[in-house]
Each structure stands twice: as structure tokens, then as C-alpha cells.
């Protein structure tokens, strides 16, 4: 799921980057096209100005000629007015043409030629007018008849055409380039747009599919969650049933084992009572006749049979204790725990007080140290746990040194409450650290009474209190029994116990 999501993210990102690049391309092409268009429109406006200026120059020269002709025909100075206006304006028009030609050397050359032609024309016109004013009309007409003025005008027309034609051609080229560019730009915009639509559509589709997968996964998780509670409670019930089965089994076994034991003990008692009467009878008999047989019978009655009965009794009472132990453990497993706030200091003080007599007999001290909080737990079970541990600690003190027993409490960071019951007794060899918690198993020299029940009982109780018990010990130095318990006993298993 994780790799899938990164792949999806990467793929969608790549597609969006591609779309962005395409968009940039479209923008750049459009910018290029706009630039070309601006250049072209600049060229067009310059061309238009050139045409206008060329037309103006031609019309000014013609105006000047018209004025000259009118004066030559009528000798009326009135007709010289257009001539005078035009000749003064020609210079400005030529200067404008010069400007418009710009950096184009061909065009400048033509403009210079036009300036020369215009100057020559004005000179010819001025000459004829001067002759006319001097009254030499025939000479003036003769100058006109030479055709030089007409020739100059034709030259000027040709030069103006030379100026405009290449500019027109350039304009055409520019226009066709512009059209090409516009077409290319259109293609780029269309293809890019199509590409963007495809890429964005793809990204949207991927995102949509991913969202669908997420939703599907979420609903699957939801379904799992919904059934989880049910499955947990089913498993708990199964475990509870198995546990109950073991409890019942232990109870039945211990009970049914006990019934025959009552008979063994009972009839042994009857046997013993009968034996006593036989012995009394034999004692009253005088020792005569078959002396050997009689003394053998007396020895059997006085020694062998009581010995046999003694062994039967010792074995049955041991068996009875073992059965009682199993019964007690199975009962403990079935007892309903009653969690309540338990002030540990007060509880430990009362447990220690109940051992005061035993402890003073052994000259040992029992200290309670550390942080002892209030637990929410089963008071009776806690009393039994610490009672058993203290009983063991006192029972297995080392007579070679003064006994010191300490109960230390502390609260761990995770909220667990830890109690150490530490002694400086005989200690337990490492190979027995696990074994001592098993039922009927004991460690070390078997010089103290007991059946090996206490620690098995402690472990059962602590597990029911949702805790753990472990031992650290060095033979010859002492032992530390460490109990960790939750600050508050969860009631869950108890409710299931009642449901089952």
C-alpha cells in the first residue's frame, strides 16, 4: 500500500510537470508570435509612412511645376503661389523620407538621389521663372522645351517607385512569415492543449482510482474493525471455556481421589483398632506351647503391622495434602476477584504483623520501603501472595547470619507497580528459578516442612491479578521475588467468566 501510494504520487506529479511544460511551450510560442506581429505592424506603419511621404514629395514637385507652368502661360504672379509653397515644403519631405529609410542603405541611396533630382528640378524651375521675370519669356520657354524638367520628373517618379517596390516586397515576405508563424503557433496551442487535457485527465483518473482504492481499503479496515471485537470476545470465551474445563477437571480429580482415600484411612483405622484387640488378647495369653510361632505372631502384631500401618497413614496423609493443594489452586482459579482500592502500605504492614511472632523467633527483621501506592486490585489475593512470599523468606533464612527481609515498592514509567520481596536467606540455584513456581516442586535441601505449593499458588494468583512474578537469586546470598502488577485490575476477563 505504501509503495503503491508513492508510485501513484510520483506518476501524477510527473504528469502534472509534463502538462506544465506543455503550457510553458504554448506561452513561449504565443509570445514569439506576438513579438513577430509587433515587428510586422511596425514595418507596415513605416511602409505606409514611406508611401505617404513619397506621394507627398511627388505631389509637391508637381505642384511646383504646375505653379511654374501657370506663371509662364499667364505671366500672372498669382500662379506662382503653389510653386512657392511646394518648393519650401520639399526639403522637409525629403528629410522625412531620409528618416523613414532608416538604416537601409539602398533606400538611403535612393533618397539622396531624389534629393539631387528635387534640387535639380527646383533649379530648372527657378531658372525659368527668373528668365520670365526678366522679361525673357522666349528663353524661359526654350528651357522648358529642352524637356529637362520633364526628364527630371520622370526620374523622380522612377526613384520613388524604386523606393516603394522593395519595401512592398519585404512587407509581403514578412506577412507570409507571420502567417506561417501564426499557423505554427496555432498547431502548438492545439497540440499542447490536447496534451494538457490528456495529461490532466490521466492524472485525475489516477487520483480517482487511487481514491477509490483508498475507500475500498478503508471499508475493508472498517469491516475488520467491526468484526475484531466479536472475534476477540469469541476467543476470550473459548479460552474461558478451556480454563473452566481445567478448573472442573482439577476439582473433580481432587474430589474423586479423596473419596477412596477416606476408605483407605478409615479401614486402616479399623484395622489398627482390631490389631489393638488382638495384641491385648495375645498379651493375656501365657507364653507356652509353640513358643516360636507365638513369638513370631507377637512380633508381627507389636512391630511389623504397626510399622505398615504407620507407612499407610503417612502416605495417605501426604496424598491428602497434595489433593488439598490441587483443590485450593483450582478453587483460586474459580474465585471471582473483587477489585477495590487497596492501600499497599497498610496491607503490607498487616501481613508483616501476622509474621511478627515467627520473625522474632528467628531473630530476623522485616522492613517495608519505597513508594507504596494505592492499587485497585483484589485484597485477599494480594494478602495471600505477600503472605506466601514472607512465609518462604522466613522459612528459608540462613541460620549462619541475621535474617533481613525487605519489601520494596516502586511505580514504573509505564504505570506498572513493582514490589520486591528481598531476603538474605539461603538462595536458590539458577536451574531451579523456573521450577520452584511449579506445583509440588521444591529446591535445595529438603529440611523444612512443605509440599511445594506456596509459589505455584503465588504465580496463579499474580497471573489472575494480570501481573507477573519472577525470582533473582544467588545461592548463599539471598533471593529477590519481583512482582509487577497493573495499577488497576481490568475487569474484562471477569465479565467473560460470568458469561461463560
Amino acid at each position, binding site marked *: 500500500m505504501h509503495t503503491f501510494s508513492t508510485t501513484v504520487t510520483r506518476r501524477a506529479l510527473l504528469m502534472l510537470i509534463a502538462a506544465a511544460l506543455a503550457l510553458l511551450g504554448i506561452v513561449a510560442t504565443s509570445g514569439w508570435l506576438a513579438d513577430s506581429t509587433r515587428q510586422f505592424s511596425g514595418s507596415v506603419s513605416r511602409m505606409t509612412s514611406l508611401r505617404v511621404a513619397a506621394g507627398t514629395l511627388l505631389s509637391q514637385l508637381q505642384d511646383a511645376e504646375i505653379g511654374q507652368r501657370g506663371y509662364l502661360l499667364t505671366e500672372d504672379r498669382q500662379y506662382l503661389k503653389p510653386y512657392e509653397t511646394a518648393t519650401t515644403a520639399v526639403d522637409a519631405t525629403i528629410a522625412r523620407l531620409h528618416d523613414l529609410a532608416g538604416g537601409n542603405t539602398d533606400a538611403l541611396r535612393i533618397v539622396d538621389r531624389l534629393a539631387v533630382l528635387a534640387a535639380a528640378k527646383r533649379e530648372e524651375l527657378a531658372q525659368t521663372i527668373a528668365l520670365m521675370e526678366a522679361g525673357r519669356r522666349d528663353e524661359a520657354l526654350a528651357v522648358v522645351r529642352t524637356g529637362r524638367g520633364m526628364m527630371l520628373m520622370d526620374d523622380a517618379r522612377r526613384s520613388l517607385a524604386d523606393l516603394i517596390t522593395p519595401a512592398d516586397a519585404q512587407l509581403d515576405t514578412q506577412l507570409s512569415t507571420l502567417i506561417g508563424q501564426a499557423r505554427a503557433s496555432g498547431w502548438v496551442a492545439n497540440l499542447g492543449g490536447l496534451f494538457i487535457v490528456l495529461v490532466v485527465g490521466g492524472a485525475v483518473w489516477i487520483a480517482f482510482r487511487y481514491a477509490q482504492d483508498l475507500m475500498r481499503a478503508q471499508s475493508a479496515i472498517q469491516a475488520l474493525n467491526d468484526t475484531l471485537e466479536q472475534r476477540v470476545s469469541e476467543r476470550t470465551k473459548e479460552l474461558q471455556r478451556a480454563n473452566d474445563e481445567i478448573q472442573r477437571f482439577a476439582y473433580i480429580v481432587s474430589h474423586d481421589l479423596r473419596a477412596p482415600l*477416606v476408605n483407605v484411612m478409615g479401614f486402616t483405622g479399623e484395622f489398627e483398632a482390631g490389631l489393638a484387640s488382638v495384641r491385648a488378647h495375645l498379651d493375656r495369653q501365657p507364653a507356652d506351647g509353640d513358643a516360636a510361632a507365638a513369638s513370631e505372631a507377637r512380633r508381627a502384631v507389636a512391630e511389623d503391622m504397626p510399622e505398615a500401618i504407620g507407612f499407610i497413614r503417612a502416605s495417605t*496423609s501426604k496424598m491428602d495434602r497434595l489433593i488439598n493443594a490441587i483443590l485450593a489452586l483450582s478453587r483460586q482459579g474459580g474465585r471471582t476477584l473483587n477489585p477495590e482500592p487497596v492501600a499497599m502500605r497498610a496491607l503490607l504492614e498487616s501481613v508483616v504483623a501476622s509474621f511478627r511472632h515467627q520473625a522474632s523467633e528467628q531473630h530476623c527483621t522485616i522492613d517495608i520501603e519505597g513508594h507504596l501506592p494505592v492499587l485497585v486490585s483484589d485484597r485477599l489475593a494480594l494478602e495471600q501472595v505477600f503472605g506466601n512470599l514472607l512465609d518462604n523468606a522466613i522459612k528459608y533464612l540462613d541460620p549462619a547470619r541475621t535474617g533481613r527481609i525487605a519489601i520494596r515498592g516502586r511505580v514504573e514509567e509505564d504505570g506498572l507497580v513493582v514490589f520486591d520481596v528481598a531476603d538474605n536467606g539461603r538462595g536458590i540455584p539458577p536451574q531451579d528459578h523456573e521450577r520452584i513456581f511449579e506445583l509440588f516442586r521444591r529446591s535445595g535441601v529438603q529440611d523444612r516442612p512443605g509440599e511445594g505449593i506456596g509459589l505455584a499458588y503465588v504465580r496463579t494468583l499474580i497471573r489472575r491479578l494480570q501481573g507477573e512474578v519472577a525470582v533473582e537469586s544467588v545461592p548463599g546470598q539471598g533471593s529477590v521475588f519481583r512482582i509487577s502488577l497493573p495499577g488497576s485490575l481490568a475487569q474484562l476477563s471477569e465479565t467473560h467468566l460470568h458469561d461463560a
Partner: protein
Amino acid sequence: MTHDTQSACIVLIEDDEGHARLIEKNIRRSGATNDIIPFTDGTSALAYLFGPDGSGRASMGRALLILLDLNLPDMTGIDILARLKANPCTKRFPVVVLTTTDDRQEIQRCYDLGANVYITKPVNYESFAAAIRKLELLFSVMQIPEAVA
């Protein structure tokens, strides 16, 4: 009208014949001469106590003292106790529960159902014998009511 204990019958419902024999021996030893009617299973005991029709009228006019073991092969003694105490013809018979179990809840249940005495069979025979003999002491002072309809 009441019978004195000398004429009362002891109904002994006990599946273990050894136990039954030990109980009987100790009852006799204590000097009681009452008839003892033994049953080794619940079904036959119920048939005797409630009659073939199961109504309990069979016990009308009887004076019975019932020694009851809880662990029977075909039913638990608690069922028998409950039926005895629920039937008007048998509810006044003293019932002594005599069993190997010393479970506190079990004991409480028996008393709740109306058991008169609850005795745990000790494995230690001397204690067992003493308990039975003390029981006889109880018989001697107890007035056994005749079952009335």
C-alpha cells in the same frame, strides 16, 4: 405428633460402599440402634422417599433422618436435597449432608436449600469417626417430626 429418635429410620444415601460401611460402624458404635436403610444411587433413594408416583405421599407417616452424600453416580445430592425440602411430605425430615467436599459455596448452597447439618468427611479417620459419633449425639436430642400431608 412426634416420634422419638429410637423409632426413626436412618436413610443413608452414599454411593461409596466403604464410606457407607464406616458410617454404619460408627453409628452402631455410638450406641444407636435405629434401622439404617442404605442406597447407593440417587434414583433408588428418590423412589423410596417419594414413592413410585413421585408425589412423596409414600413418606407420610414415616420418621426419617437422611444422611446424604453430594456425589452420586446418577445425580448430585443437591438435587435430592432440593426435592426433599420442596415437597411438603418430606420437608421436615432432618437432612445431614456428609460429603468429601469442603467448598464454601457448596456448603452455603446446602444450608440455603435447608440442610440441617453439613459434615465434611475428613480423611483423618479419627476425626471422621468422632464426627459420626457426635452426629449420634445430635440424633438423641433431635425430635424427628412425622411427615404430615
